[in-house]
C-alpha cells in the first residue's frame, strides 16, 4: 500500500527530524508529518538572529543531521539542506489529530482528513502545543492566521484580531499602524494583559485606531466573492449580532498543551502534575507497544538530547543493540567506584540498593544518575555542613554516614545503606540543619535539586517514601532528639502534610484548634486584629512551628496565621504531642520558653503599628520567600548610584540592580534586585539547568545559559535581564580622572544571556553594591533579620 510505512514520525522538530534523517539514511520506509509548512516550527519561532546554543556541552551529538551552536538562520538552513540530501520524505500541513492501533498496524488521521498507516509511530511533537483554533466554520480559510510574523507585511487591510492576551494586543497595535483593526474580546476587560500594553491599547482606542468588541465572540465566517473585502464575520455581542467585513483574521487564542492529544493516543501519564512526562522504556517506547515518544515531550528539553534520541529511536525500532550515547559518560562517572561491574550492572546495583529509587523506571533512572554525582568520601569527611545552603539530595549506595543531630552535645545518628539524607534542604529550600560526616567505605549519589523535583513530580511512590521519612526526621530533630524513634511513632503516624496557597489562612484568631504546624516549605505570617485592623506581628519561616499555644492548653487561637507564599506544613495532633511532652519535661519547658519569647515579641510589635505595616509591606514584596535581599534605607541614600556602578563594573557592564525602581515603605526601599528565593521561580523551566544555588545561598546563572528567556518571564520580581555581557572596563585611573565609563560590546549580534545578581560570588570581598555604598544606606539582609529591622525602624 502506498501510504503504509515502516515508521511514521510526527513532528519535525530536532527530535523528529533527526529520527527521519536516520530512517532515510537507512532506507527505511518512512514519512515525517509536520503540521506547519516548514521544518522545526519551535526553532522557526525563535526571535530573528537568535544565537542557539548546543548544551549540554559534555554530551556528544549522534545524528544524521548536523547541529552546533550558531544562529537560528544557519541551523535551520543546514537542516533544510540535509533534509534534502538525505531525501527525507516529509508531508507538510499534516496536523495529526489521532493515532490508534498498535505495533504493526497504526492508523493516523490528519486534520485535513488524510489517513496514514504505519508499523511504528514516533511521537516528537514537542511541548509548544498547537494554536487554539477559532472553533467556527471557516477557521481554516487561508485568510485566517494563527500567528503573525511581520506586521508590516500588511497594508490598508481590514483586519480582525481575536484574543485578549498580550500577543493579541501586541499584534493589534502593530497592525493598526497601517491597517484598520478590530479586536475581539470574549470578556468585558483585558485582565491578563500587561500594564504597558493596556496603556497603548487605551491610547489606540481613544484615537480611533483600534475598535474593540467586548463580550463578543465569532459566530460565523462567510467568504465574499464580490465587494471590497474577502469575508464577512458575524459576531455575537452583548447587544445582538454584528456583521464586520474583513480581509484577514488573526486569532491569538493561546496554545493547546499537547497532553490531551497524547493521552488520546493511549499513552499514560503517571499523574496530573503539569510537568509530568509519559512513562517510557529504555527504548523510548510508551505503554502502547510500537508507539515511541522522544524530545521535549519525553521530558528532554534541549535540542541535542532531542536529536540523539531521534537517532537512537530508529535504531531501537530496527532492533539494533546500540549503547546509548551517554554510555561513556556513565562509565567515567562510575570509574572511581569500588565495584567491578559494567555500566548497566552498576546502574542496577544502585537502583536495587537505594530504597527510594526502587519505583523509578529505568530510563528516568539513567537520566537521574547522569545528572547526579557519585562520591566515595574518606571516613570522617564532611559531606555538607550545618547552615550550608545546598539543596541536593544524597542516597547511600554502600556504607553509612553520620548526622550530627544535636550540635551542643555532638550527638550523632547513623544513616545506613539504602537510605537517603539531605531531603530537608531540598524540600524547605533553606539552610542545612545538620552536618553530615562520611562513615567507612561509603558510596554516595548526590542528585541535584532540579532532577529530584522532576522525579518527585512524576513518581508519586518516590514522593510518598521521601515524605514519610521527612516527617519522622523533622519531628525527631525539632522536638525529640533524645527520644527513640519508637517513642515517636504515635506522633509521626498521626501527622500529615498540608499545602496552602499564598494568602490562605491556616487558622484564624478566635477559632478553636489545637493542631501544631511545623513549616516545611514556604513561610507564614502571624497577625491579630487590633483597633479594627489586622496587624502583622511576626513571620515564621520554614523549619519553625506555630500553634503551640493550642497544645499547651489554650485552644482558642489568639492570632491568625496565613501563608505568604506556597507553603507546606507538617500538622501534628495534640494528643500524641502532649503525651510526648509529658514524657519529656525538658521539652515541655523548651516549648514554653519559645512560646513566651514569641508572645513577648508580639507584644512589642503591637506597641508599634508601623512595625506591623512595614513587616506586611516586606512580605508583599516577596521577602517571605527570600533568603537574602538588598534593602536601601532612603533616609541615608544620597542617590549617588555608586551601588549600580559598582555592580556594572564588576559584572561585564550591566548592573543587576535597579536602585530607583521598586517600592518603598517607611523609608525602607526594596530595589529591583534578586531576592535569592528559597524555591527560585527562575529555576523552574531552564532547559540547560543553568540556574543553581550555591552552598552559601546565592542563586546563580551559569555560562551554559542558552538565552531562552524563560527565567526572565518566570521571575515574579522582574530582576532578570537578557543582556550582552562583556565589553571592556576602563582602568581605575581613567575612571578616577576622566570619569570614563564601561564600554559596551560592539557586536550587535553577540548572544544575549540571562543576567541577574549573583551576590558577587566570584568576588572575594562580598557584594560590591554594599561595599561601594558610601553612606551605609545599602544592606543585604536575610529573613531572620526582618523582625530586627522592623524593630530598629
Amino acid at each position, binding site marked *: 500500500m502506498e501510504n503504509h510505512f515502516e515508521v511514521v514520525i510526527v513532528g519535525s522538530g530536532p527530535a523528529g527530524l533527526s529520527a527521519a534523517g536516520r530512517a532515510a539514511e537507512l532506507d527505511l520506509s518512512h514519512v515525517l508529518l509536520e503540521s506547519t509548512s516548514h521544518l522545526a516550527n519551535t526553532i522557526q519561532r525563535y526571535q530573528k538572529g537568535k544565537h542557539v546554543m548546543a548544551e549540554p556541552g559534555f554530551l556528544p551529538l549522534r545524528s544524521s543531521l548536523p547541529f552546533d551552536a550558531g544562529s537560528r538562520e544557519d541551523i535551520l538552513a543546514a537542516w533544510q539542506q540535509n533534509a534534502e540530501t538525505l531525501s527525507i520524505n516529509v508531508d507538510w500541513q499534516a496536523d495529526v489529530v489521532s493515532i490508534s492501533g498498535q505495533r504493526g498496524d497504526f492508523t493516523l488521521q490528519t486534520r485535513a482528513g488524510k489517513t496514514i498507516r504505519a508499523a511504528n509511530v514516533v511521537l516528537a511533537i514537542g511541548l509548544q502545543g498547537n494554536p487554539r483554533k477559532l472553533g467556527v466554520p471557516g477557521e481554516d480559510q487561508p485568510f485566517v492566521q494563527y500567528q503573525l510574523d511581520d506586521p508590516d507585511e500588511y497594508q490598508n487591510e481590514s483586519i480582525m484580531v481575536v484574543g485578549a492576551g498580550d500577543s493579541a494586543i501586541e499584534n493589534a497595535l502593530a497592525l493598526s499602524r497601517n491597517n484598520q483593526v478590530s479586536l475581539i474580546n470574549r470578556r468585558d476587560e483585558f485582565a491578563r494583559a500587561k500594564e504597558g500594553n493596556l*496603556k497603548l491599547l487605551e*491610547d489606540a482606542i*481613544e*484615537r480611533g485606531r483600534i475598535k474593540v468588541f467586548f463580550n463578543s465572540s465569532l459566530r460565523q465566517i462567510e467568504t465574499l466573492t464580490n465587494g471590497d473585502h474577502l469575508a464577512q464575520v458575524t459576531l455575537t455581542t452583548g447587544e445582538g449580532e454584528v456583521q464586520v467585513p474583513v480581509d484577514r483574521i488573526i486569532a491569538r487564542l493561546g496554545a493547546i498543551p499537547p497532553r490531551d492529544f497524547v493521552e488520546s493516543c493511549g499513552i499514560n501519564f503517571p499523574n496530573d502534575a503539569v510537568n509530568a512526562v509519559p512513562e517510557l522504556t529504555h527504548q523510548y517506547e510508551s505503554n502502547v507497544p510500537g508507539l515511541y515518544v522522544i524530545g521535549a515531550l519525553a521530558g528532554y528539553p534541549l535540542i541535542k538530547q532531542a536529536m540523539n534520541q531521534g537517532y537512537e529511536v530508529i535504531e531501537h525500532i530496527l532492533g539494533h543493540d546500540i549503547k546509548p550515547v551517554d554510555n561513556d559518560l556513565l562509565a567515567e562517572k562510575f570509574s572511581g567506584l569500588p565495584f567491578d561491574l559494567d555500566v548497566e550492572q552498576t546502574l542496577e546495583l544502585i537502583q536495587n540498593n537505594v530504597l527510594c529509587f526502587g519505583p523509578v523506571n529505568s530510563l528516568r533512572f539513567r537520566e537521574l544518575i547522569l545528572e547526579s554525582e557519585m562520591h566515595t568520601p574518606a571516613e570522617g569527611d564532611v559531606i555538607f555542613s550545618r547552615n550550608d545552603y545546598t539543596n541536593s539530595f544524597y542516597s547511600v549506595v554502600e556504607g553509612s554516614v553520620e548526622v550530627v543531630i544535636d550540635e551542643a552535645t555532638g550527638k550523632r545518628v547513623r544513616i545506613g545503606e539504602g537510605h537517603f539524607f539531605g531531603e530537608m534542604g531540598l524540600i524547605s529550600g533553606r539552610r542545612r540543619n545538620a552536618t553530615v560526616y562520611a562513615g567507612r567505605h561509603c558510596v554516595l549519589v548526590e542528585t541535584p535539586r532540579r532532577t529530584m523535583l522532576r522525579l518527585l513530580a512524576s513518581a508519586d511512590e518516590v514522593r510518598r517514601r521521601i515524605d514519610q521519612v521527612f516527617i519522622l526526621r523533622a519531628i525527631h530533630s525539632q522536638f525529640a532528639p533524645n527520644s527513640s524513634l519508637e517513642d515517636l511513632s504515635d506522633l509521626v503516624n498521626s501527622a500529615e502534610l498540608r499545602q496552602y496557597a499564598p494568602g490562605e489562612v491556616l487558622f484564624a484568631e478566635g477559632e478553636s484548634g489545637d493542631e501544631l504546624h511545623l513549616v516545611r516549605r514556604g513561610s507564614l505570617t502571624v497577625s491579630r486584629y487590633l483597633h479594627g485592623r489586622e496587624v502583622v506581628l511576626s513571620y515564621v519561616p520554614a523549619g519553625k512551628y506555630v500553634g503551640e499555644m493550642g497544645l499547651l492548653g489554650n485552644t482558642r487561637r489568639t492570632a491568625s496565621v496565613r501563608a505568604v507564599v506556597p507553603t507546606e506544613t507538617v500538622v501534628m495532633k495534640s494528643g500524641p504531642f502532649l503525651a510526648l511532652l509529658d514524657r519529656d519535661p525538658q521539652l515541655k519547658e523548651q516549648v514554653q520558653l519559645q512560646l513566651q519569647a514569641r508572645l513577648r515579641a508580639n507584644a512589642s510589635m503591637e506597641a508599634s503599628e508601623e512595625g506591623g505595616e512595614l513587616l506586611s509591606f516586606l512580605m508583599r514584596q516577596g521577602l517571605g520567600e527570600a533568603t537574602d535581599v538588598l*534593602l536601601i*534605607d*532612603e*533616609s*541615608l*541614600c*544620597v*542617590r*549617588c548610584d*555608586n551601588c549600580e*556602578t*559598582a555592580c556594572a*563594573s*564588576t559584572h561585564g557592564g550591566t548592573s543587576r540592580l535597579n536602585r*530607583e*525602581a521598586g*517600592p*518603598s515603605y517607611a*523609608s525602607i526601599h526594596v530595589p529591583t534586585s534578586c531576592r535569592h528565593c528559597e524555591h527560585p521561580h527562575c529555576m523552574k523551566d531552564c532547559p540547560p539547568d543553568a540556574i543553581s544555588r550555591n552552598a552559601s545561598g546565592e542563586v546563580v546563572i551559569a555560562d551554559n545559559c542558552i538565552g531562552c528567556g524563560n527565567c526572565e518571564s518566570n521571575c515574579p520580581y522582574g530582576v532578570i535581564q537578557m543582556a550582552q555581557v562583556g565589553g571592556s572596563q576602563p582602568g*581605575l*585611573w581613567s*575612571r*578616577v580622572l576622566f570619569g570614563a565609563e564601561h564600554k559596551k560590546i560592539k557586536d550587535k549580534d553577540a548572544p544575549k544571556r540571562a543576567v541577574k545578581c549573583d551576590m558577587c560570588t566570584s*568576588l*572575594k*570581598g562580598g557584594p*560590591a553594591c*554594599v*561595599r*561601594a*555604598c*558610601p*553612606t*551605609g*544606606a545599602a*544592606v543585604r*539582609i536575610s529573613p531572620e*533579620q526582618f523582625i*530586627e*529591622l522592623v524593630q*530598629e525602624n
Partner: protein
Amino acid sequence: MHGSFLSHRGGFWFWVALVLVLSSVLAYVWHEPLGQPNGGTWLGYTLGTVAALLIVWLTFFGVRKRAYYSRLGTVKGWLSAHVYLGGSLLVLGTLHSGFQFGLNIHTLAWLLMVLVIVSGFYGVWVYWRYPERITRNRDGMTRQLIFREVADIDRKASVIVEGLGSPADRMVISAIQLFSIGGGAWHQLTGRDRSRIMVAASKGSAKRWVQVANPTQQRLLDELTGLLSRSADPQEAALLQELIDLISRKAKLMRQLLADIRLQGLMEVWLYCHIPLTMALLATLMAHIVSVFFYW
C-alpha cells in the same frame, strides 16, 4: 542593620581623630619652641608631615571609591575615616602654621585646606538632611513614574482638545511642546520651570499669538479657568473642567519633579566645590613644600 557612615564601627574614627587632635594640642601647649611657634620647629615638622600625608590620603578616597574590586575595608568605612580624620586636619594644619598668617603661598595653602574641610562639613550636613527630604517629596513616585504619568496626561489632554477647538487646542498643544524642565545647573538648583506657552494677545482688534512663560502650567490653568468662566455651552464646560483637572494634576507633578531636581542638585553640588578645591589644595601644597625647602 542600616547604620550611617557617621556611626561606623561605633564611631571608631571619631575617637581616633579625637586622640589625634588632643595629643597635638597637648604637644603644642607643652612644646616651648625657641622663638615663635612655626612650621620650622620639630613639632612643626611633625605636624606638617602628618597633615600633608593626611591630605594625600584624603584625596585618595576618590580612588578607593571607584576601586570596586578593592577589599580594603568598605567605602562606608573609608568615608567615616575620611570625615573624622579630615576634620582633625583643621586642628593639625592650623597648629602646624603656628598661627602665622600672611599674604603668601603658605597661608593660601592653609586657606584652601580650610575651604575643602568646610565644604566637606557642609557635605556631611546635606548627606544627613537631604535624603529624607527627597523621600518625602517623592511620595512613593520615581522620576520615571512621574514622566510616564505626565506623558499620559498629555496624551489625554490632546484628545480632549480635539473636541474644543481654538483657542484651547493651540494653548494646550503648545504647552506640551514648549514644556521644558531641568536645563543648566542654575535652573536645576533654583528649581525654575522654563516651560512656555502660546497665548492669544489682542492688540487693539488684531489677534496675535505670543509665547509667554508657563511655570508649573500656571498660565495654562489661568487661561483655561478663564475660558470655563465664560463658557455657556455645557458640553464645552464639561470638557474644559476635565482638562483643568488633568492640568492641575500635571502642575502638581511638575512641582514635585522640580523640587526633586532641586533637592538632588543641592545634595550633589557641594562636591563640585570639594573636588576642584582639593585639586587646588594639592597644587599649592606642593608649592608650599617646595618653597619651604628652597628657602631653607
